[in-house]
């Protein structure tokens, strides 16, 4: 069994009670707990329910003597006889040994010592490792260095050989289970200690630990009350892991005859390793008397499997990415989606596609989203992240998609190009990509993104639609150079390019975003955040795509770098003519850089307008509120209110318009009916709000006059800059 090494490398997990309660529900964990339960019961009462005494010889059923194979006759060895062990029968469920002892009774009696040693050793090792790991991690400095060295040294010395030597020199060890357990603990504690140290080290600098330090809490309480409870999952996983290691170790040294024989002096206890040893030493393998030695081996494996299964549950808790396997695929099939991680495509629910209508709604449309709905999860579990969204990206334009966390803006964009992974599923809608003619003679080609197969999608990905994500450190492969990543890309899409041409193209692209061509030889971690994002943009431009999806491309950067990069990007847009879908939570940024803006709230598109119109004369109460969340940089300071309340939980959306609980103009109708996006007077303006429907009079704040053309002129200048 492995404690997954993710426990070492990942950020520490913290415990959420709600999630803990979910652990036992996984079928794996249930199976594991059942196995552990059965063995525990046998361990406790097994010794007293044996049909025979494990040492007693059953003379009644002792049938005959046999010659041990390979002895006597012309083998060169003196003839040697054993009683023939009996196969399983009603009297002896697991047959007998060569000593005519009952194997089933031995197995029952053996469970206790085996599990006792395993659990005791694990308990000692866990206590040791908590003391060592938490002390080292919390105190840090020289103490940490010293303790870590001790742990690393004991980790490097192979456990079993050391155990063998130790057990060999301590002859009385075999008869004392506690001593055996202690010796095993000494050889197994280090791994857990190292894991706990790493976890404590990162927990120590967590804000909640610092906060309690700032409030004057003493170190013992901080360790006991703030840190230790968060280590419980890892301690539990380590305990199970160490139990298994200890059981192996005990079985192994018993098999070697180092743990004392039940019939020897001083007498050891019956355990599975001892049964295996006797069987092996008495030719049970050659004799084919599997009933004697196979059950204890299978018991070790079964107990180990039980421990491992429970550990799986804990692993999935510690590392949520491991969850949602298996079950979801089945759930997906049931719900009518074909999920395949191999292809890297967002699954589309069967029957999701509406009536095929592939005519572009405007002549210059390049990416068109119609009625798109996206769920996370299937059936009753589904969370509706995006509902019924329409969006048209026009050639050479920048379309801003604004919204808060959980509004579905990234989901919408990535689902449209089918990059979202399971458990996301497209339940409805249509996405069309109206490509430029691929060759001069062909007419313009329209690709139905939801119907396209993996091959088709692979062709248009990046060459026609490229993506820049928020964190470029994660978006670049950390173990290869920037140059190698350019190379992979060009090799896949431009197979005819020579190596030199690919290199030249890489230099050219980096130059385009203001980077030195030498940077092709750099690894991502050698570049600053701004540089990495530039490299990512250069990569996105490599095949001169028609569409760029920019998902919070500058959110992680400082303002100065943000502006430099955005201005460069807009300059490149003017030169290369791609259309951009610019996703961000920062509406003020969009007003400066986008041509048109769409605002999302709780999974729905709520307002769409040219950037300047939206900024000067918002029609949606939410947009109006959002615009008044950015304190101005000029003029008198006035108190601003922001928007009351919090963004809604997608699992528990308010009825009617999702924004109505936070809306100061909410009508009665808003509480019951969901508003749909519809045109309102003004240039290309649409809004989903009951205040603008059915002859209702919108409040003055939401009916400001459209800004003049002069403004739009100026704005486009801003973009050219």
């Amino acid at each position: 069994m492995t404690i997954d090494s993710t426990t070492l490398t990942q950020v520490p997990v913290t415990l959420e009670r709600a999630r803990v309660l979910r652990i036992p529900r996984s079928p794996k964990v249930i199976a594991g707990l059942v196995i552990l339960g059965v063995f525990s019961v046998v361990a406790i009462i097994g010794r007293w329910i044996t049909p025979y005494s494990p040492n007693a010889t059953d003379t009644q059923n002792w049938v005959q003597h046999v010659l041990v194979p390979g002895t006597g006759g012309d083998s060169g060895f003196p003839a040697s006889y054993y009683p023939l062990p009996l196969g399983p029968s009603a009297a002896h469920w697991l047959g007998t040994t060569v000593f005519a002892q009952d194997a089933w009774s031995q197995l029952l009696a053996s469970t206790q010592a085996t599990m006792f040693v395993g659990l005791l050793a694990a308990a000692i090792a866990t206590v040791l490792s908590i003391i060592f790991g938490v002390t080292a991690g919390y105190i840090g400095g020289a103490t940490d260095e010293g303790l870590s060295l001790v742990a690393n040294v004991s980790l490097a010395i192979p456990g079993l050989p050391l155990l063998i030597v130790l057990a060999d020199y301590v002859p009385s060890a075999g008869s004392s289970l506690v001593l055996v357990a202690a010796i095993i603990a000494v050889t197994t504690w280090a791994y857990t200690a190292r894991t706990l140290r790493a976890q404590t080290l990162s927990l120590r600098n967590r804000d909640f630990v610092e906060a309690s330090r700032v409030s004057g809490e003493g170190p013992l309480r901080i360790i006991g009350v703030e840190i230790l409870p968060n280590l419980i999952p890892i301690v539990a996983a380590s305990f199970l892991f160490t139990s298994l290691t200890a059981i192996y170790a005990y079985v192994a040294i018993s098999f070697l005859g180092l743990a004392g024989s039940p019939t020897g002096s001083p007498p050891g206890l019956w355990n599975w390793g001892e049964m295996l040893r006797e069987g092996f030493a008495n030719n049970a393998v050659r004799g084919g008397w599997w009933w004697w030695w196979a059950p204890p081996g299978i018991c070790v494996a079964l107990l180990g499997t039980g421990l491992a299964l429970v550990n799986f549950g804990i692993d999935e808790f510690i590392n949520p990415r491991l969850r949602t396997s298996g079950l979801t695929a089945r759930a997906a099939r049931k719900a009518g989606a074909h999920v395949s991680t191999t292809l890297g495509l967002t699954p589309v629910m069967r029957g999701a596609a509406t009536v095929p209508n592939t005519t572009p709604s405007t002549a210059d449309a390049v990416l068109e989203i119609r009625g798109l709905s996206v769920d996370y999860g299937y059936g009753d579990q589904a969370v509706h992240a995006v509902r019924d969204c329409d969006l048209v990206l026009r050639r050479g334009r920048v379309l801003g998609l604004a919204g808060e966390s959980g509004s579905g803006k990234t989901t919408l964009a990535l689902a449209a190009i089918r990059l979202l992974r399971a458990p996301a599923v497209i339940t409805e809608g249509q996405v069309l990509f109206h490509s430029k003619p691929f060759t001069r003679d062909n007419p313009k080609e329209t690709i139905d993104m939801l119907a396209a197969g993996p091959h088709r999608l692979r062709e248009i990905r990046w060459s026609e639609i490229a993506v820049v994500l928020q964190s470029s450190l994660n978006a670049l492969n950390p173990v290869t150079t920037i140059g190698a990543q350019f190379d992979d890309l060009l090799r896949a899409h431009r197979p005819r390019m020579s190596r030199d041409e690919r290199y030249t193209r890489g230099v050219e692209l980096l130059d385009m975003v203001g980077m030195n061509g030498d940077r092709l030889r750099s690894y991502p971690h050698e570049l600053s955040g701004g540089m990495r994002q530039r490299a990512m943009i250069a990569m996105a431009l490599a095949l001169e795509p028609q569409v760029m999806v920019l998902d919070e491309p500058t959110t992680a950067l400082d303002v100065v770098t943000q502006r430099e990069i955005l201005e460069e990007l807009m300059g490149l847009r003017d030169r290369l003519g791609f259309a951009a879908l610019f996703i961000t939570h920062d509406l003020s940024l969009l007003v400066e850089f986008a041509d048109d803006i769409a605002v999302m709230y709780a999974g729905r598109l709520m307002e769409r307008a040219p950037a300047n119109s939206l900024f000067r004369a918002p029609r949606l109460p939410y947009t109006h509120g959002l615009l008044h969340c950015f304190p101005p940089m000029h003029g008198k300071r006035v108190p601003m209110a922001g928007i009351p309340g919090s963004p809604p939980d997608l699992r528990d959306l308010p009825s009617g318009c999702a924004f109505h609980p936070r809306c100061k103009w909410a009508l009665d109708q808003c509480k019951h009916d969901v508003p749909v996006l519809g045109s309102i007077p003004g240039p290309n303006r649409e809004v989903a709000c009951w205040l603008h429907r059915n002859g209702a009079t919108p409040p003055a704040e939401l009916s400001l006059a459209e800004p003049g053309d002069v403004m739009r002129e100026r704005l486009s200048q801003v973009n050219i800059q």
Partner: protein
Amino acid sequence: MTTAPVLEGRNLTKYFWVKQGRGLLARKSPVHAVDNVSVSLDARKVTAFVGESGAGKTTVARILAEITKPDKGTVLLDGKPVQAGRPRSYAKQVQMVFQDPFASLNPVHRVRHDLERPLKIHHLVNGNTDKAVDDLLERVALKPPRQFADKFPHELSGGQRQRVAIARALAVKPRVLIADEPVSMLDVSIRLGVLNLLADLRDREKLAILYITHDIASARYLADTIVVMYAGQLVEAAPSVELTDRPAHPYTQLLLSAAPDPDRAQPPVLAGIGAPPSLLAPPTGCRFHPRCPHVMEVCRHKAPPSIAVSPDHIAACWLHVDPAERQASENGVLATGPLEPEKSKR
């Protein structure tokens, strides 16, 4: 400044040591995270620290909260140097709110635990703890308090968590609140609510607040004074409107030109280029000189003095030094001390 500052940091300097080089020749070199920074916080005032990531804002905050020990310089509470080791008496006066509300509350404890502990540590309640907890929650506008006290952090939204974090800081009735980017992890629509809460606390509870942010617009909105940091040093300090309307330091001008501002009448021209320097080997002279559009010879060699460009408005820039003196100081003839305000209008 008429009243004595509540909390003061004088000439704070902090180096972090990182490993450099390879093999046996590896050495540790200092990162000049904070270099000779002085700051004072007054009651009923919000002081904002503005700068890019790595400018040293958070380090200053942590030194003032006594989480980090400065290498040089002293922290004074009411004019008296603070004992090392963060005594409880200090915890009672100076509290801190952290950036990430998802990380600053322990996921295993209920809200009640977070608020009770400070009360118990400092023996602030006898008897009715529940009442005290309710009061705290009401002070940060989490109503009805009963509903929030028994929740776990994951049951709260980001804004609610940050309010709980503020309530925890308020539990000991501190006089100074250090808020490290308290709204940057929150959704745009709820940021103002938290900022308004801080403003309210300043007025109602006479708190001295240090507001750390990279968002100069929010600093302008909330703070009375803005201090701009660059590469571990102070570059400019002024009343907030004065600073944003009439920035005197080229770096402040650069920051302002880069900040998103939909109201802007003209397309912005970025006033400077490049990225902040490595603090392992900061540039000589003025640390901003490699990026400065107005760079002069003197900037490359000598660190600029702090000049009062107008009363209450201080900038560390050679542009505001009298040309003759600049020349003299460049030649090394005259050591420049802090200058009188009148001398230095550009």
